[in-house]
């Protein structure tokens, strides 16, 4: 009995150490090979009444692990970040304007619906399937960016946008894994374009 307990303890100890040590190594290796499926489909920036607006459509898919977590009641925060940056020749670019659209995606087991909550406006939309909810979240329609008068002549501006899952919003126990694992790496690259005055 004692031996069994000892073996059990040793097994747990070794297993835990193995997990911890392999977690980082595996994540590093997998990061190199994981193919991202999050990208931008279309972007259209335009001005109306001296105000810049943006229409964007992302292709945003959840990974298997994220999908599983969502269906187990973990809320996912998906951020759409926009930045207007001033290009500087002798220093790194300066962010002048930064805007975020934050959605929280939840699964409601009773109705088997997916609830997308806009944390900026508080607007809640319920969808009977995940694709519809993700489509809603990854669609940016007539997003007001900035007034044209903030742009100065002779300066070059760069606008960029990306969408990503905020791992910091995940429950703390999930974060260490999310920091390193590609299963939780849901982020598009920055899509950049030069702002024409």
């Amino acid at each position, binding site marked *: 009995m004692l031996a069994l307990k000892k073996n059990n303890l040793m097994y747990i100890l070794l297993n835990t150490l193995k997990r911890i040590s392999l977690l980082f190594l595996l994540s590093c290796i997998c990061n190199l090979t994981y193919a991202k499926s999050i990208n931008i489909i279309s972007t259209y920036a335009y001005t109306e009444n001296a105000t810049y607006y943006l229409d964007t459509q992302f292709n945003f898919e959840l990974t298997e692990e994220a999908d599983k977590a969502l269906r*187990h009641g973990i809320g996912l925060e998906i951020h759409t970040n926009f930045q207007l940056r001033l290009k500087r020749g002798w220093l790194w670019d300066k962010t002048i304007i930064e805007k975020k659209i934050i959605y929280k995606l939840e699964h409601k087991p009773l109705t088997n619906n997916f609830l997308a909550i806009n944390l900026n406006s508080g607007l809640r939309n319920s969808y009977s399937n995940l694709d519809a909810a993700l489509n809603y979240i990854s669609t940016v329609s007539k997003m007001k960016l900035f007034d044209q008068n903030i742009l100065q002549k002779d300066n070059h501006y760069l606008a960029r946008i990306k969408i990503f899952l905020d791992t910091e919003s995940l429950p703390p126990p999930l974060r260490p894994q999310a920091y390193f694992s590609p299963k939780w790496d849901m982020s598009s690259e920055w899509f950049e374009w030069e702002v024409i005055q």
Partner: protein
Amino acid sequence: MKTGGKLILVIGSCLFFFMLASLLMMSQTLQNPELFDRYYSALLIFNAIGLISLVGLILINIKRLIRQLRNHVIGSRMTVRMVMIFSLLSVTPVLIVYSFSLDFLHRGIDSWFDLRVEQALDDSLELSRLALDVRMRELLNTTVKVAKELNETTDAELPFDIDQIRERINANELTLLTKKGGIIASSSNDIKNLVPEIPGETILLQLAQSNSYIGLDVIKDTNLLIRAVANLPSTNINRKDRIVQALYPISERINQLAESVQSSYIEYQELSYLREQLKVSFIIILTLVLLFSVFSAVWAAFYSARQLAAPVKNLAEGTRAIAEGDYSTRLPIPSNDELGFLVASFNDMTDKISQARDTAKQSQHEAESQRTYLETVLSRLSSGVMVFNKEGNLEKSNISAAQILQLDIDMLEHKNIMSLAQDYPNLNDFFECISLNIEERLDDWREQITLTDKTGNQILIINGATLTEPDGTTSGHVIVFDEITALIQGQRDAAWSEMARHLAHEIKNPLTPIQLAAERLRHKYLAKMEPADADMLDRMTNTIIQQVETMKDMVNSFSDYARSPEYNPEEIKIERLIQEGLDLFTNIDNGNIIETEIEPNLPTIIGDEKKLRQVFNNLLTNAIDANIAGDDNSLKISAKKVKIDENEMLEIRVMDSGSGIESSVINNLFEPYMTTKKKGTGLGLAIVKKIIDEHMGTVWLENNKEQKGACAVIRLPVNISNNTIRKRT
């Protein structure tokens, strides 16, 4: 402690307390979900950095220790041993606690989840769904009926009828729409919300495939609502592209219960999903605590081991310094414990050793001074001094001893007196005399001995005394001896000279009247006497006159020996002198076969030509006289250059073939009145020795080895200045 060590100690201590505080905060956050959510990542990263720093500190310590081991620094092995023991003692219990904690952690978290609870939650969710399903089915039927009713209603009546129908069916909102989502008419109980809820694309798509849709929805921050959507019957062609949507409220109670069931279900599902991650998180925190404890313990082990080893290391270094003769080492007293007492005792011991060393050094210095003084005195002494220990081994001797005994004194050191007597037969009498007196344990004794070698006799006067220790025991014997050969020779020469001078004076004076009287007698009476008497008178007076003449010659010889004629040094070619002597004797032609063997190009010498000529004359006379006495008449004269003790000398040998010289008299023949000839004054060889001595040379007689006869050997120094000879003279 060095500045670097202090800095590392301060950094390590700060790190330790910061990490401890951080881990305590992490422990607090575990109990508070909000804090846990906010600070978990930051604390995790901080602790990881802290641990890496701690590992860095340990690595620095290990590197330093390895370097010390490689350099064989004293105390490094002890530090390694103590670090290993301390680490083992501290890490082992921590690891045991860790393994048990892991077990408890796994069991604790697993105990949160129970299949029955999970099943109950699933069932309650299913029950809620079923309960709502009944209601929803009823409401769908109601909505289908409303669709039929609205199908009958004209467009003009719609605004009125839809409101009535909504109130009748107790719906929150009733909306008539086109299948593409266009609003035709709507009624709502919320007067603030003028924009009706439009069904989503998926609902519209479902309606295209079937006639109705029913579902629970959360719309615009409200509670759960039942959405029922139905196609208008296709009987009316004008209305076949229309749909009706009704939003029914659910009772507050049902809403609360449903929300409660759903949230509980979600929470359980979330917890179930996070079970492994929770374990990992707790394990990470536990591991952080473990690593913190282990690394802190190891680091503390390094520090403690170094602190403990420091006094021992100091002691070892101090001991080594003392072994190397450095007694100035003072060790810092580490503490007031036994180790401190040990170090203090070590310092006392060092002081005492240092004092003893100083005293010994002073004594040694004094002894050295005494010894140097004694050696100086001894080296300046003309007397030979030898010190034998009580075993009879030669301990000490001075230069004069070596010079008198004509020995290399370094070869005699530590040799026993008996072996010395055996090794040097010519000094046998000397060492035997000493040995006998030592054996007889005479405290103070005095002896005179004569050593004989081929160059003559050597007279030594030996004084001996016993060296005693303070306790009266004998520690050795000191022998002081002087060569008094020259002194005795001088005394003897002076006596002989005085006697010769006196003899010459006393004898020479009456000889002339005797001679004159004999001549007068002869002159007066020879002519007057009878021939027979005259003949007798003639013979008698002749005898008197001849004997008187002989006596005169003898007296003159004495006179010459007694007085020292003036010495006139000049450069002489010795072969010329030899040749002149040979020529003189060749003319006499006494039948001798004379052989010469003169080395060509002999160096010249400085000397008095007349005196040296007399030397050769005397020696050649002696040789011829010896030949006459013997059978053989061969005579050999040789001259060559020889090197004696690094000094160049001319060696002249006059070799006869006579009967040789008896060994009993061979060393005495140079003394006046010593002669083996029937005729002779006995002064010839004495004069030879006197002249050769004046020329700083040596002369001796020896019997021939390969043939009979004797040989007179003269050695005269080459390259000696006039002044030296004059001074000697």
